[in-house]
């Protein structure tokens, strides 16, 4: 919607809607989200819990489970629609073309199988290799993600690895079939601070070297500022602001994005209280009319309570806020 289509986009999400059908009501978790991610690009996705970040990732990879369903919009991989594929077709793409890294490396590996068994099974699911070749490839992958002595560790069980090492194994598993696109869903949240930076720089490096499109979902603005090329700020299932990371982080325009960036502690401003956004994000069952952010917004005016704003281009980015619509028109 309103966003130009990049010619080299690996993933294009167009006006995506995801609904959860419950007994009482149909809840719209994602409401008209659009973005592109190009080859080798990292899109950071930020927002509070429940803003729809993870659901967007799950939708792209085709893992929305009932009662959830994609109820509108489309998802294109290299220009081909993948959101309406039959389950068997989608499974062939999953892991092969699109991959996902989960939040908690302690629980994403099957505890009863050797790391090598899990790698080899995944490799052989997607690539025509025999056991021996797959094992060699598994060792290569482990080397690439920075596991020391991989030819030995490949026969280890997940519990024999530390948290950071397990997340490296998870990344190796996601890379088994050289996917074009990878969703990293808060890949560092469960890790020690000292390990977080290593994992993030590993993801960034792999993305760049392999020309993968990366969707990096996180709460951590520091991680975004360091890693992402562009950033999408999500609120209540919608994109509030999306644009180059430098612009959005340093000069946010959407009032919510401003609040979010203001909440980042800096050393220079150590004595001041951190800025807080008053209130909390609405529940999916009670999203207000108009702009979803209107109850918490200090700059809201009459129109914000009636019309839902759509992302429109403003100063090199897209912002979904009525404050800026006139601005661009004046220009």
């Amino acid at each position: 919607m309103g966003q130009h289509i990049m010619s080299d986009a690996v993933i294009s999400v167009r006006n995506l809607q995801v609904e959860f059908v419950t007994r009482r009501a149909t809840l719209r978790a994602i409401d008209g989200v659009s973005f592109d991610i190009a080859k080798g690009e990292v899109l950071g996705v930020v927002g509070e819990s429940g803003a729809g970040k993870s659901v967007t990732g799950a939708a792209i990879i085709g893992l929305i489970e009932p009662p959830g369903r994609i109820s509108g919009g489309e998802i294109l991989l290299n220009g081909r629609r993948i959101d309406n594929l039959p389950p068997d077709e989608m499974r062939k793409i999953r892991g092969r073309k699109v991959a996902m890294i989960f939040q908690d490396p302690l629980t994403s590996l099957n505890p009863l199988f050797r790391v090598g068994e899990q790698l080899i099974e995944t490799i052989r699911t997607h690539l025509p290799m025999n056991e021996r070749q797959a094992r060699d490839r598994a060792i290569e992958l482990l080397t690439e993600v920075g596991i020391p002595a991989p030819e030995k560790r490949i026969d280890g069980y997940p519990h024999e690895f530390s948290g950071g090492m397990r997340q490296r194994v998870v990344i190796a598993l996601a890379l088994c079939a050289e996917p074009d696109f990878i969703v990293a869903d808060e890949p560092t949240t469960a890790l020690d601070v000292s390990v977080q930076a290593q994992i993030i720089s590993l993801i960034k490096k792999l993305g760049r070297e392999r020309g993968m499109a990366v969707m990096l979902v996180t709460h951590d603005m520091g991680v975004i500022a360091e890693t992402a090329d562009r950033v999408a700020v999500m609120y209540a299932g919608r994109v509030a602001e999306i644009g180059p990371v430098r612009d959005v982080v340093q000069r946010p325009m959407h009032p919510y994005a401003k609040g979010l960036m203001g909440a980042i502690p800096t050393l220079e401003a150590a004595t001041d209280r951190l800025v807080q956004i008053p209130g909390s994000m609405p529940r999916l069952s009670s999203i207000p009319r108009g702009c979803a952010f209107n109850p918490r917004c200090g700059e809201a005016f009459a129109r914000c309570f009636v019309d839902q704003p759509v992302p429109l281009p403003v100063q090199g980015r897209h912002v979904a806020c009525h404050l800026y619509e006139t601005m661009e028109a004046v220009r």
Partner: protein
Amino acid sequence: MLAYLLRSLTQATLVMLAVAFIAFSMFRYVGDPVASIVGQDATLKDRQELAESLGLNDPFPLQFARFLGNAVQGDFGVSYRQGRPVADLLIERLPATIELAVLSAIVALGLGLVLGIYAALNRKGVIANIVMSLSLIGVSLPTFLIGIGLIFLFSVYLRWLPSFGRGDVVAFGWWTTGLLTDSGRKSLIMPVITLGFFQLTLIMRLVRAEMLEVMRTEYIKFARARGLSDGSVHFRHALRNAMVPVITITGLQLGSIIAFAIVTETVFNWPGLGALFVRSVEVVDIPVMAAYLMFVGLVFVVVNLIVDMLYFLVDPRLRGGATVPAR
């Protein structure tokens, strides 16, 4: 591995010692062994001589040690009522119980696993829901009622199956089996169903619950996200994890199938250990009861040992022992 095995074995030995102690106390102090053997008109001198020759005047630890020594060699004394060695009585009846219990266990485990997995994978399916509802009957109906119900239907009303006994059996040395004759097989059907039905429903419900639990885990989601086939996700990744708790419960249940076939054996007049035990209780045949107690203890200890070993095979986290996760 060795340390784990040794620890399990030590525990097993301690449990057996405790069971032996209780069996011995019962054997020695419930009622008067001398009075049970000699007639009413025996003189005091006769009694004292008998007590001396049986070693009943020896200090307690010595008596217990002698009891243990005999038990290890398979000597559990002589039945008060039948006047035959208890060990002989047990061995005579062991095949009937083992055959019944093993078949029940196979049926319960096989069907329980298959139905449990099916019910978990087709959680909203009509058949799965019917099976789940029916399983409530198995969990809540008492065993004897199922047995009597079956007898009424298949023996009294339809006259298809015999209502009691083992039918014709074929002997191989001391072992006897009913599997090789028509009447033997027919006689097995209802007891096997009766004994196994509760375990079947329990195992099925347990497998279903554990599978559903495992299917919600992150590693199953991640396996799906890697594009693994449904077959691999369900039967390789999910089932193996679901089996860890299932093994424990199932092990204990199978132990109790062998040990407590009493009700089923009574209902079908099955010539097994359970029926022998019930008769012994009726006539206060203490040596037989003590030996049966030891047997039950042994069954549970052996089953637990097997469960421990299976754990070890299934769950690699136990194999590391005290190793610190490598960094």
